[in-house]
């Protein structure tokens, strides 16, 4: 059998250098010295080992991690030419034991079932992996729209974009709205910093999302489809457009789709222009209509009056990607995973100070500890885990004491965080929680559309207070003022952005009040992160007088000549940390 070489060309793989690896593989094959077919796939979720190269031979498959041009030459020479597997580089395989196999062992891949296992630009490969089987089954068995909705409802799937509203119910509302024009929209405006599962899905398996939309359109009798995708995701947009062309050619889109009388649908990609608030349904609709993306009052809900004032249903990318699986395999195949109120699986993006950053899909109800330590491999440099931010700027942080919290909608909400789209940013002891709260407020303050007074001005005032605290100018009563403002913003905002913007502040105050107090009362940053509150000092016993710090100091504030104990002039110190980083004798202390 001719061997296959498959290079992972998702956005993060390319950022890690997969493009060069692919080009090298191409040129090696062109030399004629090697017998192999070269193919591409997308992200398999193992971002920390990118670039990944998979070799398939007669025995099975081998995924090689951390590849570069040099290792690739070795791989060609050994594995491709001489059938010698380089075990040291294999991260996962069905033949031998890869040293990262545990990363996959704890996962259940439903939404990500095809990501990294096929060429996302080939509809034939997608079909070979059961793409469009669900809509074919609907057409062949004449499954009624109501039955489809019932299956989705029975599966228990809830909106994966963060709201957690039961998808089946949402579809029923849209179906019950009477109109000759209806729209189905896929929300791919993944603006939550720290989450990238939607990008990965669109890049890795666009057909799953399209099929989910087609099934949804059939169920609610939608006549038009829109995918609202971030312009920051050029590769996702490109692959979506390829997939759409292929689906049209194959008759999955168009008139009387798969022979279903009167089922006409086409779908278009609409590029977002960069506004976090457009993740909110009514703001997204305004944006598709070509206006400023500002939310409006609900009711009327989009299910009654949405795009162009017609009934509209909006679901998230991950929700749609699950639908074909549910329809094809039945509700039970999905709801056997999960907890009583949160069914199925959820994709999480593991980032921050974690060893194994990447995408994982796990059944609802596993604990945060399992995700971070068993799949994520723990904290970088084995530092101490401090907190994890769930739900991005709308969410909150979960401290170490709650690390055994199960990830389902209700347990996460009980901590003050939200499930959100599934971004998990891990923080260690060097992350300052006050600075983190400031960071998120800075984000929401900038992204507030300005419609509601409390969101517009309240977030600004909160940011000012937080900035003051991190600059060592915090005052007695600041914490209480922050809490009061938070409540007012929550009560006085129309949409989710404002209603959740104070969450990062509230949860950090709840779990890390002592850090706020240290900043305000003692003018000290326990995580040694807030520059204005740091003091650098020479430890006389350790100083050898090597002059390295004095040479490195950009402000020239370190005095001392060779073989003499040095001294930092505090007035002139700009707290850049160069002396601390440069000292070879641990003779600089920071507090």
């Amino acid at each position: 059998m001719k061997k296959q070489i498959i290079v992972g060309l998702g956005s993060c793989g390319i950022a890690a250098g997969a493009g060069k690896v692919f080009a090298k593989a191409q040129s090696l094959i062109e030399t004629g010295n090697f017998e192999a077919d070269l193919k591409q796939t997308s992200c398999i979720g193992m971002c920390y080992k990118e670039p990944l190269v998979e070799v398939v031979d007669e025995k099975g498959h081998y995924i090689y991690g951390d590849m570069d041009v040099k290792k690739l030459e070795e791989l060609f020479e050994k594995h491709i030419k001489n059938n010698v597997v380089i075990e040291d580089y294999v991260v996962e395989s069905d033949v031998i034991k890869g040293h990262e196999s545990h990363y996959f062992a704890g996962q259940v891949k439903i939404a990500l079932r095809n990501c990294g296992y096929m060429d996302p630009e080939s509809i034939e490969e997608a079909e070979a992996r059961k793409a469009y089987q669900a809509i074919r089954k609907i057409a062949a068995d004449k499954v009624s729209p109501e039955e489809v909705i019932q299956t989705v409802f029975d599966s228990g799937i809830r909106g994966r974009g963060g709201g957690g509203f039961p998808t089946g119910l949402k579809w029923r509302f849209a179906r019950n709205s009477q109109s000759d024009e209806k729209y189905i929209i896929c929300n791919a405006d993944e603006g939550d910093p720290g989450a990238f599962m939607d990008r990965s899905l669109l890049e890795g398996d666009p057909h799953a999302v399209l099929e989910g939309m087609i099934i949804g359109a059939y169920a609610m009798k939608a006549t038009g489809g829109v995918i609202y995708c971030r312009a920051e995701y050029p590769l996702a947009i490109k692959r979506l457009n390829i997939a759409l062309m292929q689906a049209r050619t194959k008759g999955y889109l168009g008139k009387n789709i798969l022979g279903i009388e009167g089922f006409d649908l086409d779908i278009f990609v609409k590029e977002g222009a960069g506004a976090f608030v457009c993740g909110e349904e009514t703001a997204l609709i305004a944006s598709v209509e070509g206006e400023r993306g500002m939310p409006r009052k609900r009711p009327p809900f989009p299910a009654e009056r949405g795009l162009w004032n017609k009934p509209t249903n909006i679901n998230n990318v991950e929700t749609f990607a699950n639908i074909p699986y549910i329809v094809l395999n039945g509700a039970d195949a999905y709801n056997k995973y999960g907890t009583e109120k949160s069914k199925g699986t959820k994709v999480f993006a593991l980032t921050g100070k974690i060893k194994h950053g990447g995408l994982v899909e796990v059944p609802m109800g596993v604990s945060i500890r399992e995700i971070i330590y068993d799949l994520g491999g723990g904290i970088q440099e084995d530092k101490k885990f401090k907190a994890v931010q769930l739900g991005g700027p709308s969410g909150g942080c979960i401290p170490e004491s709650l690390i055994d919290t199960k990830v389902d909608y209700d347990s996460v909400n009980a901590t003050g965080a939200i499930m959100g789209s599934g971004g998990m940013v891990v923080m260690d002891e060097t992350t300052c929680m006050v600075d983190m709260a400031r960071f998120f407020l800075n984000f929401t303050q900038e992204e507030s559309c300005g419609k509601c007074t409390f969101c517009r001005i309240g977030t600004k005032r909160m940011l000012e207070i937080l900035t003051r605290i991190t600059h060592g100018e915090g005052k007695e009563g600041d914490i209480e003022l922050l809490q009061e403002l938070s409540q007012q913003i929550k009560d006085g905002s129309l949409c989710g952005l404002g209603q959740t913007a104070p969450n990062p502040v509230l949860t950090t105050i709840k779990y890390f009040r002592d850090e706020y107090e240290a900043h305000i009362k003692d003018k000290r940053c326990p995580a040694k992160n807030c520059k204005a509150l740091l003091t650098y000092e020479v430890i006389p016993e350790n100083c050898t007088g090597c002059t390295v710090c004095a040479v490195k100091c950009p402000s020239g504030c370190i005095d001392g000549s060779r073989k003499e104990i040095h001294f930092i002039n505090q007035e002139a110190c700009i707290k850049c940390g160069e002396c601390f980083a440069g000292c070879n004798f641990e003779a600089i202390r920071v507090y």
Partner: protein
Amino acid sequence: MRISRKKISLQAVEIPEVNISLINPIIQKYQGKKGNLIPVLQGVQGLYGYVPREAFIKLNEEMGLKLNDMYGVATFYAQFRLSPVGKHIIKVCHGTACHVQSATKITEALESELGVKDGHTTEDGLFTLESVACLGCCSLAPVMMVDDETFGSLNGKKAARAIKEIRRRETQHS
């Protein structure tokens, strides 16, 4: 807040002459289509790197789009620019994951390498330095994007080196 998010640049940038007829195909493509405002502006920006004043006027005259609607949209969305940019655009990611991994240091290093502040263009017109919310490559944090190329697992030195490399290529060409 989005009303004031476009900072007025204090840099004295000479606004170059633009060949405004380039936008005719865009006008033809979107004429009379509903919801066309954002794609039209995106198309114009794709041509010039920003939306020139002349384009607003032409779109108003030939497509009937209202100036205040266009200006409202162009200042609302982060993507649109109203002044010319450098040949290469450097987007430093300041998403959560990158922030936790010291993205500020990347911006600082680039500021000193380029000699301009965040949001500004170098005098030779080669680079514009920008901060963006999230590029979606979180597990390679901190990251930056120069034009369409993404650089991951950065530190200040690596970022500066990448810029030096592009500058070197540019000077060889010219």
